[in-house]
């Protein structure tokens, strides 16, 4: 209540001088005020359309340009030389999943455990600092993470590798997962923890079997969304996992990824490769959107069940 009163005073105080002039001619300028309001309302509504237009255009062109080149060959073959038909991006698709799998091995445990600390001890000094650092890290350019992974993994190993790519993406997953876990654990009611503690369950056991269980769907949602995010990352992979024209399942060798292949095909001069790039882009976007939509449907369903 005190807060509300304070806020009210702040707004009133700061705007007192201009508010007087604004309402001085109410009867006189009624229609003008109505029209002004209508004008701005219309302006804001149309800005929604302008913002969503590119989304429509991008998705539309992806299907228009890419759909015809997506066939079985695309999923199971590796790239063919220029001019030869039947090439695909199978190695890139597997490579992307491989790298993201490695990234998850680093990102999920660190992000989850760190996030539990933030959510369970929200007002701890370490939590406040970590929360701030995680937010800042979240905004750090992905290319910088790539350079970091290069100096930390590629230089000592003297070779581009799947591990380096996984490290770069894993590091990017950590702050996202920490923050979603943090926010979701804070929504778990205190009474649930108290009920468990009152039964004599130790605190650590309460967190692991009661708090985490009730927050499970939210946490899984956060993890899947962070995976969907790094799945399309290109910049940090350019000089960590690099690229590979063949299927590769090695941790220490360069490995292809769908996003890097789209990039190198898009900037190539060949018409054939451009078509492949569109097809790859369509597959990548549909994959990411599918994860997003599935997660959303899943979490909404869960939510409606519990509430």
């Amino acid at each position, binding site marked *: 209540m005190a807060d509300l009163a304070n806020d*009210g005073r702040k*707004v009133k105080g*700061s*705007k007192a001088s201009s*508010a007087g002039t604004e*309402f001085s001619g109410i009867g006189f300028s009624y229609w003008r*005020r109505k029209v*002004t*309001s209508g004008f*701005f*309302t219309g302006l804001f509504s149309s*800005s*929604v359309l*302008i*913002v*969503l237009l*590119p*989304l429509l255009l991008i998705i539309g*062109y992806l299907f228009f340009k890419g759909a015809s080149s997506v066939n079985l060959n695309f999923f199971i073959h590796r790239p063919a030389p220029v001019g030869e038909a039947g090439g695909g991006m199978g190695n890139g698709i597997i490579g992307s999943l491989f790298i993201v799998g490695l990234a998850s091995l680093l990102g999920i*445990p660190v992000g989850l*455990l*760190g996030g539990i*600390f*933030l959510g369970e*001890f929200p007002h701890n000094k370490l939590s406040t*600092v970590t929360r701030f650092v*995680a937010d*800042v*890290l979240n*905004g*750090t*350019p992905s290319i*910088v*993470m*790539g350079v970091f992974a290069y*100096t*930390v993994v590629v230089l000592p190993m003297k070779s581009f590798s799947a591990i380096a790519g996984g490290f770069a993406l894993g*590091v990017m997953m*950590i*702050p996202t997962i920490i923050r979603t876990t943090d926010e979701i654990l*804070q929504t778990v009611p205190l009474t649930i923890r108290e009920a468990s503690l009152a039964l004599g369950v*130790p*605190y650590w056991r309460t967190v692991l079997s009661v708090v985490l269980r009730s927050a499970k769907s939210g946490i899984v949602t956060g993890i899947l969304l962070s995976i969907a*995010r790094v799945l*399309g*990352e*290109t*910049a940090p992979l*350019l*000089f960590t996992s*690099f690229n590979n024209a063949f299927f590769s399942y090695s941790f220490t060798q360069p490995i292809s990824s769908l996003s890097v292949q789209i*990039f190198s095909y*898009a*900037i190539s001069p060949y018409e054939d490769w*451009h078509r492949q790039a*569109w097809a790859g882009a369509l597959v*990548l*976007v549909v994959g*990411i959107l599918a994860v*997003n939509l599935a997660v959303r449907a899943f979490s909404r369903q869960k939510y409606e069940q519990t509430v």
Partner: protein
Amino acid sequence: MAVEIEGIFVPQEAIKVERKSAVQADHVFKFVLGVFAFSVVVLLVWLGIQLYISSLPAFKALGFWDFIKGTTWDPVSGVFGALPFIYGTIVTSFLALLIATPLGVGTALFLAELSPKWLKRSLQPLVELLAGIPSVIYGLWGIFILSPLMANTVEPFLSARLGFLPFFRGYPLGIGFLTAAVILAIMIVPFIISVSTEVLSTVPTPLKEGMYALGATRWETMKKVALPYARSGIFGSIILALARALGETMAVTMVIGNTPQISKSLFDPGYTMAAVIANEFTEATSDSYLSALVAIAFILLLITLLVNAVARWLIWRTTGVK
């Protein structure tokens, strides 16, 4: 000594021991979690130190300020000046903000103040979709769809109408600062929208009701109550978007033309810090070349850290730390 628990007699000592070990277990549990939370802080420090150490050779050879002020980028003769990249990064980012801010804030105002609930619920996922499309896809679309559009329609139009300004002179290539800025604007607008909408939704309803009760119109309520209340948070969202634009790599790399030059004309090709790292890192054959590129990454890191910190502080001030 023994006590009865659920009909079973348990020696008192057993309970004590168990309780003690349980307390210890809790301490260990909290400590382990804390280590993982702290690892994020370590990560940021490590990131900074690692990049600083790797960029030292470049700073030592060229001098920190000369490196930043240098306008020539000639890897073959070992001359490295980062100014064209810094210029390109700043010009494209601010131009993108100029385009994205009114659209983003306008959309946020629509979602938070005007839109019916059902519409808001279907529009917000679309905005999130826009944010979820990978950068490289924007780049692909930029090369093949946006760039020809800019070259054939938008840029000739601008030079015909606004050609008296030096920014809109030159040959409409469709590849350059302006196209990069448009792509960036499309990419950062979702960040402005989602954070601004969230901030606007924290405006207390009684304040708005008070305005309506006084006979204020919708626009007056937004202007006098919602916007002043949410001002610092909206400003934070814009700065957050700026940080994204500064570090955005793939889409910009694909449409900016990758030419290290400082040009007044927005139609001309340029280069950004992120783009030069993406393009030249694997080509860097000499140690000094590599070090110069890491140095650019280090400067980019410093800029984005600063911008992000300011943005977070502004947003937290309005919505409260969550």
